[in-house]
């Protein structure tokens, strides 16, 4: 049974279409990430599901029930905000108990459930603190607990980690993932951070300009990006424009306008077709000497190299194209230096121009 379903959801602000005929189904018990650059419509979509925004067109279902025009308080959702949005005049206990009190839950049960959920987010004993007495990470855990204590049908998270520092953010990614698995709750997670999306998600929905660009597991999205935008947004990619020259029995030959030739898997290519090669940094192999047996071996020139601690971020020039790669540290690279590189043909990603 699909837990959340969007059917042609559209929201316009004046002339700008924030969300454009979005169709999306979130499966029961999965965590789905809405990923995209700022202004891609991901937050607007989430707020439509929460009921804070009523879409101009389309329908939204939670389970079998249509909720498109239902006010947020009747939707049985949990929402976690980027800025935590804890009520500053209430203690942690009061923050968590508020929703339960509105449902006329017996006092003893409220106490029990608040205690349970606080231990779940590792904040036991913090009941009497006020939000301002907690650190950012603790506040965000309280916000998560406040959403979870009501055992909602769907948990909606709007960039919940953006206000935390880098280290805490990384820890919390795993924590949220763990919690979601443990509780088996259906969750929709909004972020612009591709690393976060890759770590957290069962599936990722990549949005751009209000439209769904690609939907798939993190592996699918990373390994088989649907187009240039996805290839550039998730993970690093260098792009090379080329034209298909010949299509052979098992491979195709591509050539750029400045004469660089590549061998690539032929899957569905036609002669004369324009394609874009997306090359991941980890797919650039450095050779110590030129090779006769390998395909796609080129001599490239070092443009810039930056030391990153565990690796060296290096920009190479191949013809008129720039290639980005990461090398193990310990190697001294100076601009102008020539390197032999190998681009394994089976690892080349071809996307639509």
């Amino acid at each position, binding site marked *: 049974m699909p837990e959340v379903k969007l059917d042609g959801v559209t929201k316009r602000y004046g002339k700008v279409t924030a969300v454009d005929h979005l169709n999306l189904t979130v499966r029961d018990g999965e965590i789905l990430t809405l990923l995209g650059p700022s202004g891609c419509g991901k937050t607007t979509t989430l707020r439509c599901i929460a009921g*804070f925004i009523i879409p101009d067109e389309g329908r939204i279902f939670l389970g079998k029930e249509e909720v498109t025009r239902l006010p947020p308080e009747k939707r049985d959702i*949990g929402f976690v905000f980027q800025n935590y949005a804890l009520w*500053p005049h209430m203690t942690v206990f009061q923050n968590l108990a508020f929703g339960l009190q509105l449902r006329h839950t017996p006092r003893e049960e409220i106490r029990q459930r608040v205690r349970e959920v606080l231990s779940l987010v590792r904040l036991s004993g913090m009941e009497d603190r006020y939000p301002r007495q907690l650190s950012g990470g603790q506040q965000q855990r309280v916000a998560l607990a406040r959403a979870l204590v009501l055992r909602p049908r769907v948990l909606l998270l709007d960039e919940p980690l953006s206000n935390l520092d880098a280290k805490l953010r990384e820890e919390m990614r795993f924590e949220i993932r763990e919690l979601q698995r443990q509780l088996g709750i259906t969750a929709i997670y909004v972020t612009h951070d591709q690393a976060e999306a890759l770590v957290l998600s069962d599936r990722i929905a990549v949005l751009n300009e209000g439209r769904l660009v690609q939907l798939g597991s993190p592996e699918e999205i990373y390994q088989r990006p649907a187009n240039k935008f996805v290839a550039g947004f998730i993970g690093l990619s260098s792009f090379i424009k080329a034209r298909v020259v010949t299509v052979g029995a098992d491979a195709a030959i591509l050539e750029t306008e400045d004469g660089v030739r590549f061998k690539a898997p032929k899957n569905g290519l036609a002669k004369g077709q324009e394609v874009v090669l997306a090359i991941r940094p980890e797919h650039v192999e450095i050779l110590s000497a030129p090779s006769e047996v390998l395909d796609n071996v080129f001599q490239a020139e070092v443009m810039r190299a930056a030391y990153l601690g565990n690796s060296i971020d290096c920009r190479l020039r191949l013809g008129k194209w720039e290639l980005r790669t990461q090398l193990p540290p310990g190697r001294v690279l100076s601009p102008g230096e020539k390197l032999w590189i190998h681009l394994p043909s089976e690892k080349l990603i071809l996307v639509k121009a």
Partner: protein
Amino acid sequence: MGTKWQRVLLEGLLLCLVFFLVFGPISSLVIWSIAIRWYWPHVLPQEIGLAYWKQALGLQRDWAIAAVSIWDAFGTSILVAVTSTALVMVMAIPAGYALARFRVPLKALILLLFLMPKAFPQQPIFVNLLPAFTRWGLAGTVPGVILIHILVCLIFGVWITTSAFKAIPQELEEAARSVGATRWCTFWKVLLPLAAPGLLVSTVFVFITSLTEFTGTFFIGLPFVTTLPMLLYSSSGYNMQFASVIAIVLLIPSLLFMVLIQKVLRPEYMGGIIR
């Protein structure tokens, strides 16, 4: 050691200055209010007594003392101020909420409209209003004066209330909605407690403005409605003693309000505004 003493000295001087700035003008009022005879060039009154206070509070009637009982005017003032404050806030709270949260058409114009009575000299406006008030039978009546006070005070009510609601992040409301609170419940349980400091400030402003309002009361209220400021203005200049008594009486409500604010404003509530 030297720097420590310098600091203590500096702090002491500052304290004296603050003390002087706050209590200097008031102490002069207090001295005037108990001065029976005080002629130039004496620094302090030659004769002091509570005659003006007694007369003003209606405890004695002496034709030699130029003061009348202030109780009637005081009662009228409080009645007018409390009523107009209540009515202004009843209008200002929903209006402020709406202006802060919803996309109200012509919002800037509406806020400007509230500002209008303050943007022009008061006298022409009130003079213009007098015929209308007379036609409606409101001139020289307490309801008429209350109406004019509402006109003068609404600006403070609406502007401060609007910014009080604006200062509360929208997400706090949305969070309440997401856990199941209706718009109405959210307003009472989340918005109002968090806006309380701002609303209280707004109420104090409106109350004090109404309590000390003169021009409108003068044009619309006289000769039948006399408030404390009317008594004060009519006696100031030639009768400093009686004027000082009234001035001190006028100070009392604002001092009470200060104490109330201290008592009511819990730091948790302030948390919503200072963040």
